[in-house]
């Protein structure tokens, strides 16, 4: 029996049809294809047939191990020093064609640390660039989510007033959101320029030439920070508008009641505004987190992951692998890893911010 839903809503289905088809074709289908590809050795174009390879892609991407090495000693048993540091056996001798350690084959040093004593612990990764991408992405998210949400809330509180001309400010703060991120990135590349960039000029002028020009995007220690700052600026207006809508759901009489009880500005925020924004805060945190994990356009336009892989990110890697290196299965595996990360973080956030009854 045909249900009312499928029959009498023919017009409705016809209208929804194009959108449903597009979503199915460009969101749902690729989602499942990516999961499928990630277990194969599929390449973008390849004469060889595709083979099922199980978890090989994931092992390649996520393979990490630690190795503790003792320093090289001379005949007397004393530690051999080189440039004031103890010398350690070369890692290459272990990771390249070493029949004793087949498990280390192809791994590279990610970073190393010493836990006191002479020995040194090395963390080896099968794919160091991807590890850096994960770390950078997490740094990006951990900085952007609180700072952007906080700034947006500050702006929303400033703007949520009945003042003449307040709409002009709303429009100004919202403007960067409307401009395409690619355009914004191009503009900021000029701002961050190492020679005559706006930022260097500005810093030079206000410090009377004391601050020397910095190649913001060309320096591994400033590149990621510069991208973080620009990304926060770009989307802060969007989240401001969401906060604003949250603020406007709080009944004005609650503020009047608080005024009569003598609450200070801070107490009003603490007891009325913030609790009233609880749901908005959850929404904003999840949205910012998800957007931040998707960091790509800024990197692609401004740094291409460099310098020295200091701005590699997960999505940039996924696209670089999938299309740059035509390794569609590796790119797919990265997307699936990202999906799992974002899903788990969203679930954790929801759980942490749940309504406690």
């Amino acid at each position: 029996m045909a249900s009312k839903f499928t029959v009498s809503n023919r017009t409705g289905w016809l209208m929804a049809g194009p959108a449903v088809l597009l979503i199915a074709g460009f969101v749902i289908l690729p989602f499942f294809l990516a999961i499928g590809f990630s277990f194969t050795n599929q390449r973008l174009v390849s004469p060889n047939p595709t083979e099922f390879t199980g978890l090989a892609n994931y092992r390649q991407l996520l393979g990490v191990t630690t190795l503790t090495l003792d320093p090289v000693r001379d005949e007397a048993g004393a530690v051999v020093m080189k440039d004031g540091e103890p010398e350690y056996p070369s890692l290459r001798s272990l990771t390249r064609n070493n029949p004793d350690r087949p498990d280390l084959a192809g791994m590279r040093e990610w970073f190393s640390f010493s836990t006191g004593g002479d020995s040194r612990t090395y963390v080896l990764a099968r794919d160091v660039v991807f590890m850096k991408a994960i770390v950078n992405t997490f740094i990006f998210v951990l900085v952007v989510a609180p700072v952007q949400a906080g700034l947006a809330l500050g702006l929303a509180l400033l703007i949520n007033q009945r003042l003449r001309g307040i709409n002009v400010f709303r429009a100004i703060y919202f403007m960067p959101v409307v401009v395409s991120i690619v355009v914004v990135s191009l503009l900021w590349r000029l701002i961050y320029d190492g020679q005559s960039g706006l930022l260097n000029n500005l810093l030079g002028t206000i410090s009377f030439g004391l601050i020397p020009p910095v190649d913001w995007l060309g320096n591994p220690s400033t590149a990621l920070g510069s991208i973080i700052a620009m990304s926060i600026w770009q989307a802060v207006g969007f989240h401001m508008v969401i906060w604003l809508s949250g603020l406007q759901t709080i009944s004005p009489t609650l503020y009047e009641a608080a005024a009569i009880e003598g609450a200070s500005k801070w107490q009003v925020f603490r007891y009325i505004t913030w609790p009233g924004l609880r749901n908005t805060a959850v929404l904003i945190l999840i949205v910012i987190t998800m957007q931040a994990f998707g960091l790509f356009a800024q990197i692609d336009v401004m740094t291409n992951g460099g310098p020295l892989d200091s701005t590699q990110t997960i999505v940039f890697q996924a696209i670089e692998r999938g299309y740059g290196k035509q390794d569609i299965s590796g790119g797919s595996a990265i997307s699936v890893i990202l999906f799992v990360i974002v899903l788990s973080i969203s679930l954790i956030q929801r759980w942490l911010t749940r309504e406690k009854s």
Partner: protein
Amino acid sequence: MARISLKDVKKCYGNAHVIKGVDIEVEDGEFCVFVGPSGCGKSTLLRMIAGLEDITSGQMTIGDKVVNELPPAERGVAMVFQSYAIFPHMTVRENVAFGLTIAGASKAEKDAKVAEAARILQMEHLLDRRPSQLSGGQRQRVAIGRAIVRKPQVFLFDEPLSNLDAALRMDMRMEIGKLHNQLGATMIYVTHDQVEAMTLADKIVVLKDGKVMQIGAPMELYHNPANLFVAGFLGAPSMNFIDVTVQAVNGTKALVSNAALDPVEVSAARGPFTVGEKAILGLRPQYLSVAEGAGRLHGAVALTERLGAETVVEVTLKDGKPLIAALSQDRVFPLGAAGDLDFDPATAHLFRPEV
């Protein structure tokens, strides 16, 4: 001491004059009710007293302080809003203790004061609930509880009962009356329900279009309304108004009549009246009675409503105008029967026609 005095207080929103010069004195410990039709400025006036709206001109004092420029918190007032305005994310206990929390009171002090307020309002069992788990009347109690813990000198109520059903409204009305006796604080209460006004008030202020129509004790307003508006606003069913012609004026009395009314001599205190002029005679339905003999008003019964202890009769007078009589027994009148009514001239009010 919390005597409240308003002197020529005005309020304008841009070009809109909402309060047009109001003089009101509320004595310490008095229960004062503002009544008036919707949009007459009751809430605005109350919010000005609370300090939520500023005063365009005039002077307002609470106690012996001029409060025109004082922020709400420093006026020593507590307000109960029509929409309750209780904080949705706090428990009842936290809501009631809010003012104390703000003032940085100790936990012991808060517990003691909340317990006392809860006892007065009989809501001890509700203290750990959230507002969403309360009924309308219970929320109202929480709002009142929050107002009373700080022991303010002045309570302001803005139509606190208008969201409640009739039965609950009557209960809460009595509770507010009791509360006033218990606390002895000055209270100003806004309502458009004249029953609330009549039963609760020591003093009623009748407002219309931002102006004071009359101020006085409920019975004074009922028995001696200053003008047609007050006469028509208080009392249910409302006062009958009959167009009459002045036949003769004799000192403080005037002789009036019309086609359906035999000449009758009534008080002319709201004069001056001149012979031959039109005037309006106000007759409360409750003071009309069925004529034993000829009667003074002549008409025919158009409708009867039997309410048990009372019978409301609509009579169409000879000149075609309707008249309502509220008779204090259960009586049956056949439709269309001659309805001759009588009244004591001392209970009639003669008004000059409004221009």
